């Protein structure tokens, strides 16, 4: 962390708000507002995992797309090219490679959004 960011940094701020919501607000709330407090805590844990894992997962995804498509480009270009391939290209010849890429990408998103889902199988 560079000097430009003081502590508690963004992830640590989210943790403080999570604790407040869970330990202080939730016991004082009832009904739908209490239910939403639990959802809000979950959103903050998702955001924290995104700050933690997002950059590496995005980078790995871009590398996989470059290999799969055999070309360079920005993540947005590569993604658009991948969608074109899937909509109109010859998929049979690289089905396994494509599915492996999509599986890894989906697993990465789930590691951020709901890691328990991967354990469920």
């Amino acid at each position, binding site marked *: 962390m560079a000097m430009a960011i003081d502590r508690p940094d963004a992830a640590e701020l989210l943790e403080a708000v999570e604790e407040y919501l869970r330990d202080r607000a939730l016991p004082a709330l009832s009904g739908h507002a209490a239910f*939403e407090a639990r959802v809000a805590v979950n959103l903050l844990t998702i955001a924290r995992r995104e700050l933690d894992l997002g950059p590496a997962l995005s980078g790995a995804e871009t590398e996989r797309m470059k290999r799969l498509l055999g070309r360079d480009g920005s993540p947005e270009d590569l993604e658009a090219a991948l969608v074109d391939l899937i909509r109109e290209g010859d998929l049979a010849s690289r089905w396994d490679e494509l599915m492996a890429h*999509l599986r890894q990408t*989906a697993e990465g998103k*789930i590691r951020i959004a709901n890691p328990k889902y991967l354990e469920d199988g």
Partner: protein
Amino acid sequence: MDARIETLAGQLEAALSNELGGRVRVGNLVRLSGGASRETWAFDAKGAGGGAMSLILRKDFEGGRALGLAALMGEPDDYDRAAEYALFQALHAAGLPVPRPVCLPDPATGLSDCFVMERIEGEGLPRKLLRDEAFAEARSTMTAAIGAVAARIHGVEPGKLPQLPLRDVASQLVLCRRMLDLGGAPRPVFELALRWCADHAPGAAETPRLVHGDFRNGNFLVGPEGLRAVLDWEYAHLGDPMEDLGFLCLKPWRFGNHALHAGGFGTREELFKSYEAAGGGAVDPEAVRFWEVLGTVKWGALCTIRAALHLNGVQRSVEAAAIGRRVAETEFDLIHLLG
């Protein structure tokens, strides 16, 4: 809120008095939770003769119909609450386990876009049905009961029903395409699944049958002895009966019981056996798998829509925001189904 409850109770009293004759009194009116485009209210009604009824009011949310399936498909929304009421009348007459429709209020009472039906007691929350000791006996009968009720739904003579839209594979692919386009940037997994569906569509049935259209754990009302009713018919249409069996087997409705594809209650094989035994006709497992894939795309696309409505400010909430991050789960499920 209290003022609104009083107004609503008065309107219900007027509508029910009209319908049933004599002075009807409404009490214990409470809004039930849930519903993104529809409100559900529970209440009790007492007639002049002292007879008491437990009732439900289903009412369009203000602006709710703009969020409905027909609006998304660019169709005129003929399927309003009056049409749903007529469907309930037909279903109830056909002997299906659905709440008895009681009253379609005259708009002159101030009530519109709604109808009143009987309230059947029972549990609908999937986690309770799949986990609670109180439903242990019910669980042992659920797969057979679900298979049998599906067979009865699909066996209803279409001529005895009010007009329902025909939703074949092609129209459902159009719907998914439209929802995904509204839901944000193109997603490779959904694109792949749509292409797969176009390539693997089962042949159309000779006669389209009544299809529930949202046939899943979450729309079953259950007592300790077993299945009591099938709810939420707003997506009912004519089409391929295998659609209901496929949709029932989606992973999100298994709530952790992943080896039990049929809503977490039983295996696919048990479901198919009970469906055929109840006279549902021969099950086509490949068609069921196809509808599992298309059903997963449809569910995932609906999630992207809920998230987009949050992101573009139409319906903001932490729940809608959370749903946007669950789309990855449907992508993961699709990869398993196709891989």
